[in-house]
């Protein structure tokens, strides 16, 4: 994958935004509530069709495809509110993703329990959940659920991973742990990661580059120190830093 560029014209929620994210890169998207982060995310993920512009994945246009088609082309996603398959064990959650990736869903006879078991266990080991493989997802601690979501997304072997506020609701120490894990996986697999985040400690710590969105438009782009020093960003988003860290 060489990168992703996109631009939207004429949409008010997000207007004429262009950017690219490279394999192995962690790109953070920040901005005030209502700036259009979710809209942008949903257009890349296929939940919303863009009114204008285009989304390219490795050179192929995926603009306007549905979420399922986009997922099949290699865009993985984690959700702000954790969404796992509650009636399955941790391992089965990952097996399900691998089954879907291999297009083995429409099989009615052979039991699914043994399919791709080893591959699922390998992924769980990578995110540090090997010991929990047989537990129900309902009893997992919140931080572990987030790791499971990551494993499910990886089960679909994505080239681009969209993470919507991945650390929301986690304790500060866990946040950094999860994002370092993501960072490691991104480097190892050449995975491009686009994430939104309100915790500036996390943003400045793990991202390679930061995009700042305000009222649907890109107002700044750059690495941590550049963004922190940007007066416009301080005004609309960061404030004085007294209650948000990152100072």
């Amino acid at each position, binding site marked *: 994958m060489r990168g992703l560029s996109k631009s939207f014209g004429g949409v008010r929620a997000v207007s004429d935004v262009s950017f690219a994210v490279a394999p192995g890169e962690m790109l953070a998207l920040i901005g005030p509530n209502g700036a259009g982060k979710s809209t942008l995310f949903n257009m890349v993920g296929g939940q919303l069709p863009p009114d204008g512009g285009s989304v390219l994945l490795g050179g192929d246009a995926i603009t306007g495809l549905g979420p*399922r088609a986009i*997922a099949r082309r290699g865009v*993985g996603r984690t959700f702000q509110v954790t969404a796992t398959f509650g009636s*399955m064990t941790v391992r089965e959650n990952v097996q399900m993703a691998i089954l879907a990736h291999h297009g083995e869903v429409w*099989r009615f*006879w052979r039991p699914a329990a043994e399919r791709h078991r080893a591959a699922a266990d390998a992924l769980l080991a990578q995110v540090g959940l090997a010991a929990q493989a047989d537990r*129900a997802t309902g009893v997992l601690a919140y931080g572990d659920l987030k790791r499971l979501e990551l494993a*499910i997304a990886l089960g*679909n072997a994505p080239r681009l991973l969209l993470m919507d506020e991945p650390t929301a609701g986690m304790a500060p120490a866990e946040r950094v742990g999860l994002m370092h894990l993501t960072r490691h996986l991104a480097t190892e697999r050449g995975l491009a990661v686009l994430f939104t985040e309100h915790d500036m400690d996390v943003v400045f710590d793990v991202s390679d580059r930061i995009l700042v969105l305000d009222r649907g438009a890109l107002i700044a782009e750059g690495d941590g120190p550049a963004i922190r020093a940007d007066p416009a960003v301080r005004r609309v988003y960061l404030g004085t830093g007294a209650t948000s860290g990152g100072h």
Partner: protein
Amino acid sequence: MDSVLPQLLTGLATASSLFLVASGLTIIFGVTRIVNFSHGSLTMLGAYIGWSILTRLPRDPAWFALGILLTALATALIGVLIERVVLRRVYRAPELFQLLATFGVVLIVQDATLWLWGAVELPLPRPRWLRGFVEVAGGRFPFYDLVLIAIGPVVLGLLWLVMNRTRWGTLVRAATLDREMVAALGVDQRRLFTSVFALGAGLAGLGGALSLPNASANLGIDLSVITDAFVVVVVGGLGSLPGAFVASLLIGILQAFGIVLVPKITLVLVFLVMAVVLVFRPNGLMGRPQAEAREAALAAPVVRAAPPALRWLGAVALVLAVLAPFGAGDYYLTVLTDACVAILFATSLHFMMGPGGMASFGHAAWFGIGAYAAGLLLHWAGAPMPLGLLAAPVAAGIVAALFGWFVVRLSGVYLSMLTLAFAQIAWAVSFQWVEVTGGDNGLLGVWPPDWARSPRVTYWIALALSVGVALLLRRALYAPYGYALRAARDSAARAQSIGLDVARLRLVALVIAGAACGLGGAIFSYGKGGVFPTYISIPHSVEALLMVLLGGLQTVAGPIVGALVYTGLADLLVRSTDLWRLVLGAVIVLLVTAFPEGIAGAARRLWLRGREA
């Protein structure tokens, strides 16, 4: 052209009555989140009570108006009673249990009304002023229709004022959006709910009483009104008053013109309109997306295969079942055959409802389509039983695929109501298309060939087919398809994000469930020697739900156990009392109010308590 205006006015009058009933239903749903099945029963009570009051009063307009208001008051009080005795205990119960509880009320009110007023239709003697005509644009129109037409908008206006200009109305609208939060802000939910229910019930009674001069008080009102009201409320958008008004107009006018233009398929037309509206606006014309139930986040337990002990138990039961004909008499063999059919009926519903997450309120439709497919083939083409048994699931599966195309896009209550409406259409077709289906008399002489005629052989065939299909369904659930289906139910968004086609997974589940259920219908017909519209009736659909819920949704064995228990109980009940509806209704209400978290939930609670003690 001459017939357009009168039909329009008739349609508007119908719309007014519809709106009165539907507005009550939609307000009650909005606040309590309960789909009140007994709303039609309140309308029916309104008609009967109205009849009893109005026939005792002087017959002039002022007394008529007073009698109508008294009736509305009386039904409001009955509503308060129902709310306090039944609904108050199930507000925290799962949606389906609430529906079942209100259906229990339907059964109780049916028998109570029959017992109080008798089986004969009660028409209201119409004094002169009620029969009067008014000249409009050169035509003569029934005065009373014009009165009805005026009442609709007046009631809408009054309700709007109450909802938007009073504190009570503000609280009601807030509770419609988030009742828990309203309670946390210091508002007494119980009083709010009771008052809302009283208003809704009063409106239902008003609708029932006002329909008297044009119709009569009869025992069919409850289910026919509730179907119409469901359609209106769903088309308008659950919880939306203006939506209910617009939808009433739409449906009322459609019915009025439909009866003139295409009398036989008016109901089908109504259904099509409903389907089209829901395809383009899945939440109805003016509805908003249903907020996910906040407390429903309780994760479904992990599905695991049954322990070996249970499998052995199942195997032993199966051997006993195969040997049963050597020990049981003919009567018990027919009951056992019914039980086999019930297993198909319940496991097929469980398949789409448990793992598939689609709670159907019209499962009897597939049963009936299978039965009629077999019956009609035999009746019109002389097809033998094996062909009938093959055609039944195929026919039910094909219809399920057509119907499923839009139903799988819906969820929750909308899906339940659409399935219910569809079943009502199927019922109406079987009932009204007399030339083909034999109407009420049904198709007779649907017997198996001679070699399979003895109760013993019929039973073995039924047993082999039902157990075989149940095992196939189980197999599919543990295969990748079953996992994917559950994944789509657990989290549709997550399922899509890993590339699963949620709509198609659900559609296939519906087709499989429909086909399996259709097979059950065919077996049942051969066992009884006939096919009748009652196979598709609402009570029959509810039976399937009862079986599934009795056994529990979470296990594959659950619906089988539920089917057996229910068949046994029903057999016992029907043989021992005439008032079986009342008893059954009371049992349902008792079960649901005693175990509001479901039978499985109650067992869990007892277990937890035992552990901590």
